[in-house]
């Protein structure tokens, strides 16, 4: 990129970084890249019921040159891999990739010669989304996590240096950006709960606990 690579470390970067990242994350434009059944869920997420328009990204661009987010929705065959890479290369930087569904993430149940075992063999992936296929909420969750991650991304080589220095000082957020489930992040009480649980290393237990509390039919084993 431009000016941020020429400036000495620390000048201008933090605020410009924040502004640029805020602009980036606030309006993703996805490239239309549906490959299999996950694409149906992706379309559903763009429709009125789930409405990705709430985050300014209901338009899936038919041209990769207008897109900055590629949602690889579905299994990538060996024959599709070069096409995928070409579309990725045609997208303007900065760009991100979500690998949607287990097939794109790791090959899923198709552990055979025809399917690329994870799209990260072909392009760098920013967010892995499991599920077969993931429900639209899961896709929205992945997008929100990616937005949070991008908000904290360093800008240029100096920005990366500053981030490393911050890490060396131990000045890192309790929860890594993009690790907290969206429904927890949007709710203040649950967010505090999650942060506390991460400190104790039991965030997955917290999730099960909260889920059990909400299940009335389990009250025999749990809610005494």
């Amino acid at each position, binding site marked *: 990129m431009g000016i941020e690579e020429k400036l000495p470390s620390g000048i201008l970067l933090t605020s410009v970084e924040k502004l640029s990242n805020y602009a980036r994350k606030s309006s993703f434009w996805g490239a239309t890249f549906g490959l299999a059944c996950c694409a149906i869920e992706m379309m559903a997420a763009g429709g009125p019921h789930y409405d990705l328009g709430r985050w300014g990204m209901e338009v899936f661009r038919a041209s990769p040159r207008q897109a900055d987010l590629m949602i690889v929705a579905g299994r990538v065959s060996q024959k599709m891999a070069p096409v995928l890479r070409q579309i990725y290369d045609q997208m303007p930087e900065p760009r991100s990739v979500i690998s949607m569904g287990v097939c794109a993430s790791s090959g899923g*149940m198709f552990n055979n010669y025809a399917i690329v075992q994870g799209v990260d063999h072909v392009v760098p992936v920013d967010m892995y989304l*499991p*599920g077969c296929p993931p429900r639209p909420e*899961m896709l929205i969750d992945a997008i929100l996590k990616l937005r949070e991650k991008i908000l904290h991304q360093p800008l240029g080589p100096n920005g990366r240096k500053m981030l490393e220095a911050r890490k060396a000082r131990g000045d890192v957020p309790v929860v890594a950006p993009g690790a907290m489930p969206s429904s927890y992040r949007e709710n203040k009480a649950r967010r505090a709960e999650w942060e506390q649980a991460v400190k104790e290393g039991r965030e997955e237990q917290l999730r099960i606990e909260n889920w059990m509390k909400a299940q009335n039919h389990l009250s025999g084993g749990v809610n005494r």
Partner: protein
Amino acid sequence: MGTFTGSFKGFGVTFAHMFRKVVTTEYPFKPPTPAPRYHGRHILNRHPDGLEKCIGCELCAWACPADAIYVEGGDNTEEQRFSPGERYASVYQINYARCIFCGLCIEACPTRSLTMSNEYELARDSRQDLIFTKEQLLAPLLPGMEQPPHPMRLGDSEKDYYLGSLTNPGTSAGAERAGGADASQPGEPLSRGAA
């Protein structure tokens, strides 16, 4: 004139929609409740005294069409007891980058140790983080439960655990329902053949 009234009709449809109920879900702010049997992330359950239900038989791993489950069995000893009976799972991993949430592992599980929750917010930014280990999968310790390893509290042999399991499921987050208002409390020894 026909076109004039026609366009009124057309815009009327658009206008009427402004007064309809909004269908959009408010997902991250008000998460919807999935169907009770929605296949979400797994839970490894515990007996009412805190011992693990998993016996390390690997049937879930064999049933898995995506080879997402990895189990290594270990032997229980009198000093180091994690589950009633002979064996327990010393390593238990589910790779959520492979798991297709089909539930065949749940059907295969002979002790109802493995069940599914409705949690679905699983996206992570590395494949490493998507491999859930036993620590992440195990159910939390409820009141009256004790962190294993510890000796069997509910009887002399594993039979006492399985015979009483219908009225006292421990954490069995699945289809079992409460046995009744007076179902025995967790941690309380069951009478033999109570079920």
